[in-house]
């Protein structure tokens, strides 16, 4: 329990220290909001020109779009510690974290809540809410629960990718940018229903980096559309567990990396 308290306190103090540069943060957040907003303009242009995306309407696609951007914005704003892992090691800050009676993973993930990345959050939220209303999805408790459950899973999946990439720093000194491919690439791919892609890409985002699974099935269920893959209705609640599995795996991998780090010396 106290660890959770510590997590949120660290984040709170990170927010406070950023607020010293209030004007800059507001400007950058607004900027991010508009930058991500421009991507939606492209979507609108495409639908205007082409009428439909296979059998998906604009509102349906918008739901996928908004969903993944909301989730990614949150995950992105909380992944700064892992992004700067090589620097933490080099400056010895990681060692100083190890001197505190708090698990290392918690400290790294609580290092910063990057406010400006939240610009994307609001953009995604607006789009998602618009889509939700346009599609006439009822605001029932079960529906809200499902989308939150799916969103949490996607969030954990993003975190897992970032943690895995950061863990590699325990072995190599140079940071490997591959993780960015999966996070940004994942967002790029999964912001549309994955059924529009050829099978190879579908399979990749269903089984290897299951961002597709975690978004497609719950959202298709909410929209009430016929899914490309026939799966029983209740599995919609099970599939998001993959996010949790990945997250737990990444934690285990991180502890492995930490053990290597403490025995090989810095």
């Amino acid at each position, binding site marked *: 329990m106290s660890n959770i*308290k510590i997590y949120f306190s660290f984040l709170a*103090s990170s927010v406070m*220290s950023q607020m010293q540069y209030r004007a800059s943060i507001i400007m950058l957040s607004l900027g991010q909001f508009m930058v991500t907003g421009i991507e939606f303009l492209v979507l609108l242009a495409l639908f205007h020109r082409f009428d439909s995306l296979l059998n998906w309407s604009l509102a349906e696609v918008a739901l996928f779009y908004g969903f993944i951007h909301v989730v990614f914005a949150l995950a992105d704003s909380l992944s700064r510690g892992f992004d700067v892992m090589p620097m933490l090691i080099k400056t*010895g800050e990681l*060692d100083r974290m*190890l001197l505190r009676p708090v698990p290392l993973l918690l400290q790294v993930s609580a290092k910063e809540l990057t406010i400006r990345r939240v610009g994307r959050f609001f953009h995604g939220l607006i789009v998602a809410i618009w889509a939700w209303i346009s599609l006439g999805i009822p605001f029932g408790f079960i529906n809200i629960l499902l989308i939150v459950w799916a969103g949490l899973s996607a969030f954990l999946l993003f975190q897992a990718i970032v943690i895995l990439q950061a863990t590699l720093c325990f072995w190599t000194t*140079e940071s490997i940018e591959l993780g960015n491919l999966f996070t940004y690439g994942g967002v790029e791919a999964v912001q549309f229903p994955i059924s529009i892609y050829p099978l190879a890409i579908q399979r990749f985002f269903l089984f290897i980096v299951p961002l597709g699974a975690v978004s497609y099935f719950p959202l298709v269920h909410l929209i009430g559309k016929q899914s490309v893959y026939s799966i029983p209705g209740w599995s919609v609640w099970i599939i998001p567990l993959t996010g949790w599995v990945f997250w737990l795996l990444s934690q285990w991998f991180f502890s492995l990396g930490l053990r290597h780090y403490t025995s090989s010396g810095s």
Partner: protein
Amino acid sequence: MNNAIIKVENLSKNYFVSKRDKGMKGSIKGLFRRNHVLIEALKDISFSVYEGECIGFVGPNGAGKSTTLKILSGILTPTSGSCTILDRTPWKQRIEHVKHIGVVFGQRTQLWWDLPLQESFDLLKMVYSIPTHDFQRGLRFLIDLLHMGPWLSVPVRQLSLGLRMRADLIASLLHNPDLLLLDEPSIGLDTETKCDLRSFLKQLNTKKGKTILLASHDLWDVEALCTRMLFINHGCILRDTTLKAFLSEDISERSIKLKGVSKLTLMQFFPSYLIEEQGESLCLTIDTRKISLKEILTSLSSMEGIEELIIEQPGIEEIVLKLYKETKNYD
């Protein structure tokens, strides 16, 4: 009889440092052929530290001081050997262990850079689960003692080195640890701050009974604070003695400073000795293995006009320097 707080037995630490070519080609080559160099940072060292002691940990750079401190802190695992601190193995029970020690690494701060000092302390209160009453009382005491009152609302990044060091000391003591590990705490500090620090640490040790392990290049700090010295070089502990014994180390060189005689006269009496001019005085360096002080003084007493005569004992710096030289080529 005091308890042994730290028990180190046959501790060894080896690293492999890989020599690798730069760039992608080097990285790929590195996957296939490992060009590793073995570094023996610690070779089978053993020592114990008892409750209430203040130990000076001395040695040149690369001797193994930092490695030892890191192992004692629990952030490094040794290759072999055992270490028990307060009945715990540091690296195996890191989180519990760290709750009972205070660590200050001289050059780097434990505090939050952008936040006001008070915030850092408040965060640490939470991190160490310090009861509010104890925290406030302890903090007040430390702040008063180190005169940090006016700086509580200042962001850590704006503090000078001296102030930051004091703040780091406070931070390391908030949770009232019984053992304090200090690595070069007075590096870069001005004389006055060093003095304040010294008296503060002395108080902690003598009045509050805290056990202190001080690794330092500043031998005056060691001399002023420590009751025992560990001299380490090339990963081995070469001296583990009380400070008193260390200072009476057999050094045969003595310097005699004279005022009032001319260099010529002195050279007549002591033709084969090194005589240097130091300002207004002359410095005569003798080797007590070759000639006893008694003989020197007898000769000098027959000289006329000596205004001042000082016989200098070798200080801790000379003794340590001698040790450095002697042990330079051990391996």
